[in-house]
């Protein structure tokens, strides 16, 4: 039965957007924690671990996210591990995010000038004090823009999980569009919701950058 696109559909889309947000949030936390590990393995002075991190980063950045999703959703059951769409989505997006966060944060750390390390050393600060009080605060400020830039990508990429049947904003739009045969208003509404999420994120980044004072 075909029905009109109604206010109730907008509510349904907004409710589905909560899953988009929750998925992005989960991948940010999971990927963030793993990303710290990746960044550390990438810079510590021990070659085999550097290689491991580089391999991880290349493998994940060099393959399509959709492929990674399918590996988890269709691949894990083949080895006897049954996963639902949420678990597969959260797991693969976290792993995907870890490679990007790892690289972004390594780059931010290394872009703090060697002279800042030296200035700290010349004042008698220990290595840990130089890292914690001199270098990290600057690296964090530098990393805000690229980190949030990636978060925006991550939010948009959650839409791929529609393809394994996870009902987030895009999948919900497909469902309503199928029921109403009114794809234009449905997808326009979805686009507006994505835009509001992503725009808020970049505004947040600007606010953070202003608050953490570091030379430009």
């Amino acid at each position: 039965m075909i029905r009109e696109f109604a206010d109730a559909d907008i509510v349904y889309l907004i409710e589905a957007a909560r899953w988009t947000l929750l998925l992005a949030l989960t991948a940010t936390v999971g990927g963030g924690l793993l990303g710290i590990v990746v960044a550390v393995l990438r810079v510590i002075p021990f070659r085999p671990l550097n290689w491991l991190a580089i391999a991880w980063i290349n493998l994940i950045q060099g393959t399509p996210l959709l492929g990674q999703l399918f590996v988890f959703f269709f691949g894990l059951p083949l080895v006897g591990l049954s996963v639902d769409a949420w678990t597969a989505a959260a797991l693969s997006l976290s792993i995907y995010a870890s490679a990007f966060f790892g690289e972004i944060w390594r780059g931010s750390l290394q872009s703090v000038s060697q002279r800042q390390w030296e200035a700290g050393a010349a004042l008698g600060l220990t290595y840990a004090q130089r890292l914690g009080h001199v270098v990290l605060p600057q690296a964090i400020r530098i990393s805000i823009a690229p980190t949030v830039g990636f978060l925006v990508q991550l939010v948009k990429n959650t839409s791929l999980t529609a393809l394994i049947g996870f009902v987030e904003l895009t999948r919900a739009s497909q469902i309503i569009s199928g029921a109403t045969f009114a794809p234009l208003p449905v997808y326009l509404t979805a686009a507006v919701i994505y835009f509001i999420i992503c725009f808020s994120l970049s505004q947040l980044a600007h606010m953070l950058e202003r608050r953490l004072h570091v030379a430009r």
Partner: protein
Amino acid sequence: MSLVELADIRKRFGAVEVLKGISLTLEKGEIVAVIGRSGSGKSTMLRCINGLEKVQAGRIVVDGIDVTAPKADLNLLRQRAGMVFQSYNLFPHLNVERNVMLALKLVRKLDTSAAREVARAVVTKVGLADKLHAYPDELSGGQQQRVAIARSLAMQPTLMLFDEITSALDPELVGEVLRVLEGVASEGMTMMLVTHEMNFAKNVADRVIFMHEGRIHEDGPARETLLEPRTAELRSFLNAVLH
């Protein structure tokens, strides 16, 4: 015992020997200007003295600390031997007051109010009391360099190393920094400064060391050495910088 002793130190970067056997001693209260062409090893020598570079041979003792010992306490050494760089290197995320307070709290273990008091005193001394809450990028190069000097002085070092601290400054800002240096000198601080300011070297330093190709080529009283160079190399260097 002398405050600083360098005994035949050698430093290589890869295959290139940059310091080819440097020996010198520095007494407490002495002010030594180090001059020489670009690449002669002046910065490297200073960086070896406070342990930022490791030497391959020879021995360095600063205020009783054997810098070249494998287990040398470099953080302690650097509290005794302050260093100011050409590029100021203030911490851009901290305002002037907190730039000075950081090491006072972390290294000298002062509490916040004591650290703030010391910071205000030293910043006032370099004439920037009105800039305590400014961030480095809100200051001129000369002001930043004066803060860097204050930050180092606040640690109460027994020796100060200055590496071409006016070279990055616009000419009109050099004077204010040199005046601060003169103030530090007049209080009896032991100082070793790499400089291209020959007048400053002549008038403020007790002694001049001329480095040439990784060696100390001349070492003597400031005026005499600069006015009557003994070697052709120093003569031609002075001609080049003075004309």
